[in-house]
């Protein structure tokens, strides 16, 4: 099982990726959508790519784009989608408990900490 440490910025990037799993994102697109500077985004992408959670591919040279150089596009791998959903679900289930993972507070509402619910990717903002 691959481990990723879910920081706030990583969470935002994963949410952007999960809004449409099949979509291809180039770097500036991700920067705008996740509201991250390039100095944060690209090291994160490199790490995710090293872990096999993200793949990249070069765009076919666009002949009709007025000489725009080809871009590199990023996308989650199948493993990346699985890990990202799991991590976001765990973060979401840990947050309402307020006491991190495995919060067992007697007075909480029943069902406030649902384990292993599969979040629909379309729900992400």
């Amino acid at each position, binding site marked *: 099982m691959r481990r990723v440490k879910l920081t706030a910025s990583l969470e935002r990037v994963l949410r952007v990726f999960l809004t449409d799993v099949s979509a291809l994102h*180039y*770097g500036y697109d991700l920067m705008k959508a996740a509201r991250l500077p*390039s*100095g*944060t985004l*690209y090291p994160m992408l490199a790490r995710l790519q090293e872990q096999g959670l993200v793949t990249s591919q070069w765009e076919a040279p666009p002949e009709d784009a007025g000489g725009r*150089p*080809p*871009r*590199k596009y990023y996308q989650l791998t199948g493993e990346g989608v699985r890990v990202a959903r799991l991590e976001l679900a765990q973060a979401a289930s840990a947050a309402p408990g307020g006491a991190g993972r495995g919060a067992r507070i007697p007075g909480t509402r029943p069902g406030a900490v649902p384990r292993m619910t599969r979040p629909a990717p379309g729900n992400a903002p």
Partner: protein
Amino acid sequence: MTSGPPGPSRAGDHPPGRRPAGQRLAEYLIGRACRRLPGEARDERYREWTAELPAILHDPRVRLPLLRTVRALFFAAGISRTTRRLRRIRVRAGRSGAGASLGNDGRRGRSTLRRVVVGLAIYLAVLTAFVWYGQTGGSRGVPPLVAVVLVSGAAFVAFCLNDLARAKEVRYLPKWGWAIACLIQVPLGGILYLTAGRIHGDRS
């Protein structure tokens, strides 16, 4: 082609006159940043990152052209941080990989500790000799001794700062941290840098 340094000459598709000065400056900065990467990644990353610049410079959501140029330059600054971070990750990975294959991971930690202890011992020995000489030598011996200490201290700091400036990579602290340590604790900071922070044979 892969080993060639990236630079403005790489963007051969565009007539140079058509690209605005801001874009050329950002390309130059990205090229500088990419020099930190190893040869095979350098060229690819340069192409990837400079290909983002047209999107930034023609972003319809940002009205002012000047603001778009500023954003492109911020992008290039972030790329510089990125390559620095990537290099650090690579250095760490290479070192831990070598340590694991040679099985001397613990020994490296111990040898660092030993060097720190040796450095501290030298410092204490010099300090003790200085105090002892000052006590036995009386008032007549002090002025030349002070001069010697001052000159050698200044020379030592100069040596450490020169060494630090030429080092590609240092341990435990960033380079500016070691520079401050060398300056504020005149013998001790420099001794600690030379014994602990310095990576041998890593000079430019």
